């Protein structure tokens, strides 16, 4: 059991090493087998470890394995040590299984790309780092994985580096997430200084014993860790990097910027939930940030023209739901929505990737149209994904996961009607923009011809993900009907169950309300985007629409208050004192060069004379010494 746990993060790194060192010499077929195969093996190992874990569940709640000692300096002791519990298991399952499907898909998607081996090397490095992140036993190792995935995100956003805009997007993502990461490492320092350990379980144990709930240090530390989570998960106010991150290849958007990496913030908060329950203000802030983010991103998604940018904003919005759930203490609902979201969002990105690929890099949905008949498999899977995203009642997994969040946002002890209103408005927006995508891209008249049709290597992962997007929801059914709690009973072995208000609302009432709202959203999308396109046409030129399209002007705002002053300062501070030091050194070297150059005049007797004088001086010195 413990061997499997240690092997899970190791194998993708092995794949990365092989591909990075010998990638140039291998054939494309071998590269594909190594790249996807290593993740496949890990998926299998996760499955074996998972069944072992489930069998021994009530007795053993987590397995730990120390691989080797990493740092041992003073009282800082950090090992390369992994621990598997229900929360890590869910994340591992999604990373390896969805990751494997995306790798398989990439073999065909990237087949003609010249950076084929580089792509798979980075992807394997990503999977390895992400697994370290979720399996890490101590917070320092978690931070290593955290930065590792940040690096891979940077490398893969700028994968097509010949286009300067892609490099810019990559740098933007790196710098903005760095803002959050800096807050997070300061939080880690505080934790280490307070408790003298970095082991996550010990930290949480000691925090709950030594820190008083609501004390300023607990609030500060929780807020700093939240900063890291906000950056990584693209939540308000650090969300601006994610839409630009779509510059990377579509499988990257699916794996890193939808299914796994961006949910690392959710993982971090769930992992350190004890700390957050000690800081109720911060936890309330999480809920509010989540609610605001899902609204802001939902409106932005409605105004986008680029297929992948719609999905990017939708990802921000869905992670907003997860944060909302974390904020009201519905831990398992959040993790459940993470898993279902990984299924349908990976599916949507992969399907969008196919559409963009066959239309020769066409991103604008208004230049697509009528693809329903030409690519039935892609259409159907995309439809299922979009239905799951917009939480189509009863039949899709998205309904069950999102409905749980909406329900707990009002019924939880810390929930409120305002959070629920934000959530339900978001659900309406989600249905609207999801079906806007469907109706504009796949219905109407054909504006572009697909150059070729996707092969089986791309469509089979789509079909598997579509099946999961529908049936994944039946792991967890609400109490009003079905009442199945397979998922939450698993996750509750690690995370505390949600505390529900005594005087409960009627769950079935709120569920039917959200179902009606979603259907209304779909109907509205049908009316204004398919039946009366003139209506949406007139709106699309309004200033409000442009405001939404530009992501509520956050980019411009940051540009004015951060980027411009820094550029201006560095401009006027170009020749500061330290520059002068460097300039002096180079000037001195130049001056000496000129002076000594005079002696190099080509006159043989001059050389002889200086030679003689030199010897005379040395001899004089040696005699008189």
């Amino acid at each position: 059991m413990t061997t499997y746990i240690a092997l899970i993060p190791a194998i993708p790194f092995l794949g990365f090493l092989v591909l990075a060192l010998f990638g140039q010499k291998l054939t494309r077929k071998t590269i594909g087998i190594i790249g996807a195969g290593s993740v496949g093996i890990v998926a299998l190992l996760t499955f074996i470890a998972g069944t072992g874990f489930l069998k021994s569940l009530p007795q053993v709640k987590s397995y730990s394995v120390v691989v080797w000692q990493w740092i041992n300096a003073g009282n800082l002791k950090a090992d390369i040590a992994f621990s598997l519990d229900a929360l890590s298991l869910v994340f591992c399952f999604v990373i390896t299984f969805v990751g494997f499907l995306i790798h398989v898909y990439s073999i065909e998607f990237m087949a003609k790309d010249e950076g084929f081996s580089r792509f798979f090397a980075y992807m394997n490095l990503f999977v390895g780092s992400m697994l370290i992140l979720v399996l890490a036993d101590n917070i320092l190792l978690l931070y290593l994985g955290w930065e590792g995935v940040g690096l891979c995100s940077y490398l893969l956003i700028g994968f097509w580096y010949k286009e300067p805009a892609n490099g810019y997007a990559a740098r933007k993502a790196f710098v903005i997430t760095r803002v959050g990461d800096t807050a997070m490492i300061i939080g880690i320092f505080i934790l280490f200084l307070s408790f003298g350990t970095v082991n996550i379980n010990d930290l949480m144990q000691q925090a709950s014993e030594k820190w008083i709930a609501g004390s300023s240090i607990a609030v500060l530390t929780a807020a700093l860790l939240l900063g890291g989570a906000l950056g990584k998960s693209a939540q308000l106010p650090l969300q601006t990097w994610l839409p630009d991150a779509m510059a990377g290849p579509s499988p990257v958007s699916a794996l890193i910027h939808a299914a796994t990496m961006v949910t690392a913030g959710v993982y971090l908060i769930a992992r350190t939930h004890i700390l957050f329950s000690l800081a109720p203000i911060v936890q309330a802030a999480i809920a509010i940030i989540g609610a605001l983010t899902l609204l802001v991103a939902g409106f932005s998604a409605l105004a986008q023209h680029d297929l992948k940018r719609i999905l990017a904003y939708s990802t921000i919005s869905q992670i907003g739901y997860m944060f909302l759930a974390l904020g009201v203490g519905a831990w398992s609902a959040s993790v459940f929505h993470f898993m279902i979201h990984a299924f349908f969002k990976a599916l949507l990105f992969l399907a969008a990737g196919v559409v963009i690929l066959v239309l020769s890099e066409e991103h604008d949905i208004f230049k697509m149209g009528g693809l329903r008949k030409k690519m039935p498999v892609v259409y159907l899977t995309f439809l299922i994904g979009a239905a799951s995203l917009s939480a189509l009642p009863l039949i899709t997994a998205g309904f069950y996961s999102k409905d749980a969040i909406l329900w707990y946002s009002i019924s939880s002890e810390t929930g409120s009607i305002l959070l629920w209103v934000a959530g339900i408005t978001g659900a309406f927006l989600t249905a609207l923009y999801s079906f806007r995508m469907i109706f504009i891209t796949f219905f109407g008249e054909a504006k572009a011809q697909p150059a070729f049709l996707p092969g089986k290597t791309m469509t089979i992962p789509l079909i598997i993900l579509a099946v999961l997007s529908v049936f994944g929801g039946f792991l967890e059914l609400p109490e009003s009907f079905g009442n199945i709690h397979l998922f939450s009973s698993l996750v509750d072995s690690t995370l505390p169950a949600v505390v529900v208000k005594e005087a409960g609302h009627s769950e079935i009432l709120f569920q039917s309300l959200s179902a009606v709202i979603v259907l209304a959203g779909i109907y509205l999308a049908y009316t204004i985007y398919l039946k009366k396109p003139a209506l949406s046409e007139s709106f699309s030129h309004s200033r409000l629409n442009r405001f939404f399209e530009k992501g509520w002007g956050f980019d411009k705002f940051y540009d004015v208050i951060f980027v411009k002053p820094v550029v201006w300062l560095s401009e006027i501070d170009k020749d500061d004192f330290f520059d002068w030091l460097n300039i002096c050194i180079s000037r001195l070297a130049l001056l000496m060069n000129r002076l000594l150059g005079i002696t190099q005049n080509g006159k043989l007797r001059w050389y002889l004379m200086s030679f003689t004088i030199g010897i005379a001086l040395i001899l004089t010195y040696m005699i008189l010494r």
Partner: protein
Amino acid sequence: MLTVPVEIQILLAGILFLLGLIGLLVRRNMIFMLMSIEIMFNSAGLVFIIASTYWKQPDGQVMFIFILAVTAVEVAIGLALLLQVYHHFKTLDADSVNKLKDHN
């Protein structure tokens, strides 16, 4: 047998060396410069002979044979170079042969 004190012998070698050095420095014709170098070599050789007789050891004389061989080679190469220089510049003036210098 009348013996000259060793200091005088060394002084002779020193004077010979200085004469060679002065010749090397003041002469501009490279043939004469080469000859001056020969004189300096011989003064060095003379010191070896003096030392050899002073200590009653044959090593110094062996050394002188070596120096003789080295000078012979040096003269051969030096003269060959001078011939090439003369072909190229049509002069043997050391001051006008100054192409190997920094550009400024």
